[in-house]
């Protein structure tokens, strides 16, 4: 008893020849079907080169266009030939010219000999699996597909649309349940001959001739009718990417393929000389007798598909440029933005750095230059501190910075004096944590030595700018986690909001804040605001400050709460 190999080849005939010889050398008869597209001359030479092997046959040639009936017809005839000519064959293995046996053929023969009644064919109903690519699953079986998908895509699509519109449905003959799965199977003589000699075969053939990609469903469906025992998996390792085309194996996959313990892999790049050398020279790779275990390969390929379809969040590059809304995360990591804190506290930046260990920048969007932490001129990713370069594309500046500093949380100061082109980016980014003390921009004015008319004009401007930012943060499109306090609110009890911010930043610490940043001296600030009001400029963003007496809050340390332990 042995295994017969039905081999469908269309290109790289030299490799196909090598593999066919390999099978035959182990005593497996081989029936080769060559695509009708192979020129007669090439085919003749191919046939001649294999003429010295007695157990290799060639079946009549069909044109095998992807997704059409030709492949099934070719398989049928080749299988018939195999069953007729080689009565010792118990299992028939369908392989392609770019398949490569990974384990010694004898192991495959033994494996199948130990399971004489088992058909290895992946076969599942369309309703249950999400394999199909391109939206045609159950419709493969209920519509007609007379036009070639490869060459007449437009007609193909239009005709499908038309049938959907009209509500056309084909009847499935004899009430069979369509199944589908990998087209690379291994069937027993019993099952295969039952399919091929079925009295209703003409009916089935006529039906499947117009099914879309019948090579993935013809045998998969009919095997269900006759098989005594179906193992719904393919013995051929064959991974498909998101467009439904097979992944290709190269020389650098050698170790991976070795460790997979699969019997046959598809599809091998014809020029992967190292793979062919390694697997076709019968290695002494020890009789392992293990079950195939393609887990690692599965993971690599599914990661590749994920990379292609979802990409790396927050990355913008030459081959990833998502349309608005498709970024899948407009920045790659969380970061924090503080507005007004540096105005209210003298040493806010070093304090925040001490408390959280994060990198705390100054005003990254400052007018004169980019104030990177530590006054650096260049930072991770070689991002320059030039304000012009930043303002040329503020969004790219932000996403680049967050991308280049992956693994380290960034914090920066923001304010109404900064470049405001970024505000919608910030407010729409779920990665942004924004804390605002509104109205704190007035403090530098309060301490400045300018003429009051200038101060008044600037205050009016800054108030307008900040209220725009607050509008953005409160808009229905905002996705940032933002907290907004008026200045009056904040200074009433500054420790609580600070504690909350630190906690939200995710710093692992159960203790209460041990140290507060130093607040600027607010004596006279109420009167200053009143002066602005008297000049007709109403500063409202800072909340209600009594003009006198001075509302200087006392940053008295609260007594520690007593812990009552049981």
């Amino acid at each position, binding site marked *: 008893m042995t295994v017969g190999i039905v081999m469908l080849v269309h290109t790289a005939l030299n490799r196909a020849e090598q593999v066919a010889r390999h099978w035959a050398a182990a005593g497996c008869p081989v029936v080769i079907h060559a695509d009708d597209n192979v020129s007669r001359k090439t085919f003749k030479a191919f046939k001649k080169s294999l003429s010295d092997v007695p157990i290799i046959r060639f079946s009549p040639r069909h044109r095998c266009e992807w997704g059409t009936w030709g492949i099934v017809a070719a398989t049928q005839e080749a299988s018939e030939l195999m069953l007729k000519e080689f009565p010792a064959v118990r299992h028939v293995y369908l392989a392609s010219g770019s398949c490569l046996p990974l384990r010694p053929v004898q192991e495959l023969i033994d494996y199948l000999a130990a399971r004489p009644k088992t058909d290895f064919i992946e076969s599942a109903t369309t309703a249950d699996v999400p394999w199909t690519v391109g939206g045609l699953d159950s419709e493969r079986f209920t519509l007609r597909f007379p036009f070639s998908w490869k060459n007449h895509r437009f007609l193909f699509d239009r005709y499908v649309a038309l049938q959907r519109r009209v509500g056309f449905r084909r009847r499935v003959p004899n009430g069979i349940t369509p199944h589908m799965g990998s087209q690379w199977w291994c069937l027993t003589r019993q099952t295969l001959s039952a399919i091929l000699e079925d009295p209703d075969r003409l009916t089935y053939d006529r039906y499947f001739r117009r099914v879309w990609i019948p090579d993935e469903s013809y045998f998969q469906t009919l095997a269900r009718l006759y098989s005594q025992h179906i193992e719904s998996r393919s013995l051929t390792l064959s991974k498909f990417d998101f467009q439904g085309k097979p992944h290709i194996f190269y020389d650098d996959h050698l170790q991976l393929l070795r460790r997979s313990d699969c019997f046959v892999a598809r599809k091998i790049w014809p020029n992967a000389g190292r793979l062919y050398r390694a697997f076709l020279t019968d290695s002494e790779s020890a009789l392992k007798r293990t079950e195939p275990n393609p887990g690692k390969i599965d993971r690599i390929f599914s990661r590749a598909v994920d990379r292609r379809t*979802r990409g790396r969040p927050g990355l913008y590059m030459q*081959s990833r440029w998502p349309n608005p809304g498709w970024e899948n995360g407009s920045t790659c990591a969380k970061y924090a933005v503080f507005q007004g804190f540096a105005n209210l506290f003298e040493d806010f930046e070093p304090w925040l750095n001490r408390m959280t260990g994060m990198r705390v920048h100054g005003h990254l969007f400052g007018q004169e230059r980019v104030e990177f932490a530590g006054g650096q001129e260049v930072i991770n990713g070689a991002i320059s501190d030039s304000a012009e370069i930043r303002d040329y594309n503020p969004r790219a500046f932000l996403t680049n910075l967050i991308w280049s500093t992956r693994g380290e949380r960034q914090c920066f100061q923001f304010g109404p004096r900064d470049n405001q082109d970024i505000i919608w980016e910030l407010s729409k980014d779920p990665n942004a944590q924004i804390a605002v003390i509104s109205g704190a921009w007035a403090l530098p004015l309060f301490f400045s030595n300018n003429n009051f008319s200038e101060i008044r004009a600037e205050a009016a401007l800054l108030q307008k700018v900040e209220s725009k930012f607050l509008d953005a943060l409160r808009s229905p499109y905002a996705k940032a986690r933002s907290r907004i306090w008026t200045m009056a609110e904040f200074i009433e009890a500054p420790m609580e909001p600070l504690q909350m911010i630190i906690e939200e930043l995710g710093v692992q610490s159960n203790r209460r804040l041990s140290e507060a940043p130093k607040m600027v001296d607010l004596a006279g600030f109420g009167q200053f605001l009143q002066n602005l009001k008297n000049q007709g400029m109403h500063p409202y963003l800072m909340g209600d400050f009594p003009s006198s007496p001075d509302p200087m809050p006392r940053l008295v340390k609260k007594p520690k709460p007593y812990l009552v332990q049981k």
Partner: protein
Amino acid sequence: MSFAQSYRLRLQRKRWLIRAFRKRRELTAVADRTEQIRKRDILLFSTMRNEKIRLPFFLRYYRDLGVSHFLMVDNDSTDGTLEYLADQPDVSVWSATRGYKRARFGVDWLNWLQSRYGHNHWTLVVDPDEFLIYPFCDTRPLSALTDWLDASSIKSFSAMLLDMYPKGRIDEQPYKAGQNPMEIAAWFDAGNYTISRNKKFGNLWIQGGPRMRAFFPKTPEKAPALNKIPLVKWDRKYAYVSSTHMLLPRGLNLVYDEWGGEKASGILLHTKFLHTFSEKAAEELERKQHYAASVEYRAYAESLRDNPELWCRWSEKYINWRQLEILGLMSKGNWA
């Protein structure tokens, strides 16, 4: 895109092709070995001037990748570039003595050669200081990539220009013929690139890197474009519009994914900044044969006088393609 717009682009493409056809007269074949070209060969097209010192390594690099034939245009070299190329067994070389600028920086010449010899071939258009890096380039030849692109019905492959520079002054370590230039210019900027989309041609416009950082800190909009599409399954109806930054028909420019995914892409290591650079910049300034009145070279000449060091603390040292992939400069896409 409206019908009128696409028709205008079609006219523009025809115009470039006609122009290329006219400019063929400026090319004189010095060594024509194009009969060696076989059906599935990968062809490399390049135009150059006084680059002899770079050629030994350049040719070796691309031969090793699996380029079968080189089609070169020599623009009036005085250092023996032409003779050197004419002696190579797998190079066909044409000489062009007319203006580089009038031939749209060599694009017309190469468009013509590509339409003549590149039809149905994978064609690579690079300058002698550009070295293509693609995913798995250390283990798979270029034909593995082109076969995969063919199988995936992809016709064009993007490779952003990555400016490489040495540590220390640019002219500190002299480059010797045959040497790997990445040994000297081993550093690059990892994450300071800005991108916008060109609505008309559909390509991305990428700027940044050390040239923007060091030469254009006050006028970033003048920094040179870094997006390139050097590897194309050529058809005689195609035309490069400006350098290899963009092509027509515009579908070829869609080398990026718009729905959040990543397409496969590579990198062109740009080793312009060797000791030869200062000389070259001075000469090009004189000739005024470069883009936008050589604004780039003027900026270089000015900055280079004061401080010809591009290296900074945050420069990355080049290791291999996987490093570039992790940094997000290129992508494997779904090639595994």
